[in-house]
């Protein structure tokens, strides 16, 4: 009996030692010399890096609203606490100016910082892990070519155990791919390019794929849509009803490259940012590749009710300048507000007056009875850089009360989406805090 106890104790000690080694052994550095040798030098390298930095949309997270590009400090409010993106300019004190090539590649591929500490997966290294070492180095070369900015990001506010960075090693073991994305020989070169851009660069799944209990992207439900920071990232799987299965290639191409597609509305919120900062800078061939790949993702039926009504009765009966004469909404607060604040740009028949970007017909945002993104757009406004100049919608958060924005949202959903919705002032109050 005593002997058995000793054996058991020994086993516990061995396992504990193993776990301790796994958690605390210093992280090793990858060998990047082969990739370094393959890369161009000088401006050619920086240009390649600039394109890839945009494709990976680094600026979206590493810049605050109105802040200096790549200086970090953007807050991510997560269920476990708030973390802040770091400064990734080449400033030696507050940025990554002292990082070696190998350290930079290790951060992108394994989520480990210069000092060997684990980073948090709000930094989408689970996606960037699939990036080639050459591309990672080109991104570093571009970031290091930019002006340095001295800016210390605020300290993370995380409770125990989430503030113990080594815990992430378990998570990494389970959820982080261990090498660059391998081309699928059964697929075309275009599809493979699209897969690489979507998975390793644009990291679409980080928002559009639901997360599991461990907060990792659940690829069993790839692109089925998710909600984060008060916005819905819609289902972008090939499901015809709840996804993008009914979109034409041209619509997808336009939406991704211009932020607007005829009959599908305009990208706003985080998707608007993704287009503005990243996708609109990609070559037409790369956008086509993304479309090819995204369309091939198997359909996922989501429970989300943002299902587009093709020809809502009220919309069809309206002209650009006047709503249909019937309708219960007549003389209501929602209609009154729309008439005064919205109609001069959006019009009443969904086609937009001021600009095609103001066309609401077919947009999921005006077809979602939850009104999640609609309320956010009304509160925060929207803007997009286009070849015809910058298109903007003002933010109405300070102009209208919760009661008014709720009434306006319900009116818009009824008129433009044919939806019966019940958005309350409390919903708007909640949305304001997000």
């Amino acid at each position, binding site marked *: 009996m005593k002997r058995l106890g000793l054996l058991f104790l020994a086993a516990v000690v061995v396992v504990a030692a193993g776990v301790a080694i796994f958690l605390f052994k210093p992280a090793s550095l990858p060998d990047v010399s082969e990739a370094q040798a393959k890369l161009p030098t000088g401006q050619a390298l920086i240009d390649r890096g600039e394109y890839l930095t945009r494709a990976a949309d680094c600026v979206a997270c590493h810049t605050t609203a109105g802040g200096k590009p790549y200086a970090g400090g953007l807050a991510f409010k997560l269920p476990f606490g708030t973390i802040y993106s770091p400064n990734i300019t080449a400033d030696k004190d507050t940025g990554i100016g002292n990082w070696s090539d190998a350290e930079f590649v290790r951060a992108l591929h394994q989520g480990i910082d210069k000092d060997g500490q684990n980073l948090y997966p709000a930094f989408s290294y689970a996606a960037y892990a699939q990036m080639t070492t050459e591309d990672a180095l080109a991104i570093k070369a571009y970031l290091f070519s930019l002006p340095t900015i001295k800016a210390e990001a605020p300290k993370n506010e995380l409770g125990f155990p989430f503030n113990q960075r080594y815990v992430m090693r378990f998570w990494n073991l389970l959820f982080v791919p261990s090498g660059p994305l391998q081309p699928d020989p059964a697929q075309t070169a275009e599809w493979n390019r699209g897969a690489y851009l979507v998975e390793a660069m644009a990291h679409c799944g980080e928002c559009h794929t639901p997360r599991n209990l461990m907060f990792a992207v659940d690829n069993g439900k790839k692109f089925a849509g998710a909600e984060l920071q008060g916005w819905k990232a819609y289902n972008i799987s090939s499901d015809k009803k709840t996804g993008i299965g009914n979109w034409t290639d041209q619509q997808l191409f336009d939406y991704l490259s211009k932020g607007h597609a005829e009959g599908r509305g305009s990208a706003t919120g985080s998707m608007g940012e993704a287009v503005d900062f990243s996708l609109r800078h990609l070559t037409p061939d790369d956008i086509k590749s993304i479309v090819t790949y995204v369309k091939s993702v198997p359909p996922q039926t989501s429970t989300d009710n943002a299902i587009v009504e093709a020809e809502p009765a009220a919309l069809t009966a309206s002209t*650009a*300048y*006047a*709503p249909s*004469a019937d309708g219960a909404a007549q003389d209501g607060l929602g209609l*009154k507000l729309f*008439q*005064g*604040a919205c*109609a*001069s*740009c959006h019009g*009443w028949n969904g086609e937009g*007056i*001021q*600009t095609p970007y103001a066309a609401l017909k077919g947009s999921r945002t005006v077809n979602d009875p939850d009104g999640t993104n609609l309320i956010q757009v009304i509160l925060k406004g929207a803007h997009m850089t*286009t*070849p*015809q*100049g*910058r*298109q*903007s919608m*003002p933010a109405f958060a300070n*102009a209208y009360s919760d009661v008014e924005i709720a009434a306006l949202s319900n009116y818009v959903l009824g008129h433009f989406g044919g939806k019966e919705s019940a958005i309350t002032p409390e919903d708007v109050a909640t949305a304001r805090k997000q």
Partner: protein
Amino acid sequence: MIALNINGEDRTVDVPEDMPLLWVLRDVIGLTGTKFGCGIAQCGACTVQLDGRPVRSCVLPVASVGTRSITTIEAVGATPAGKKIQDAWLDLEVIQCGYCQSGQIMSASALLNRNPDPSDRDIDTAMSGNICRCGTYPRIRAAIKQAAKA
């Protein structure tokens, strides 16, 4: 260089494509009848017409005008609807301080263009985006009705 047709005249302007049409009209061309109000398409003071349709020039990047012809308050009186509206405006002395009135007249004449006999509701729908801090709304409504009968 951006080519524009303003009040029937072809013009080219050397401005950034992002510049709002309002700035081009006022600061580059010198047509100061169109007013700057809120700058975010919420007051209507900057309304001009593109191919006879009312738009808010303060948020309209000049590059998005394209080949559409621009009509401003300086020339709207030469259109049949604009003439009727301006006559009625003078007849009923609609204007008080006047700052919003260029925009009011541009919206009202566009309304009359597409709808020769507007009801109260049509007027509300068309004119709600044009704000008047002097509160001349009752006279605006009356003048539109009078213009419709002219």
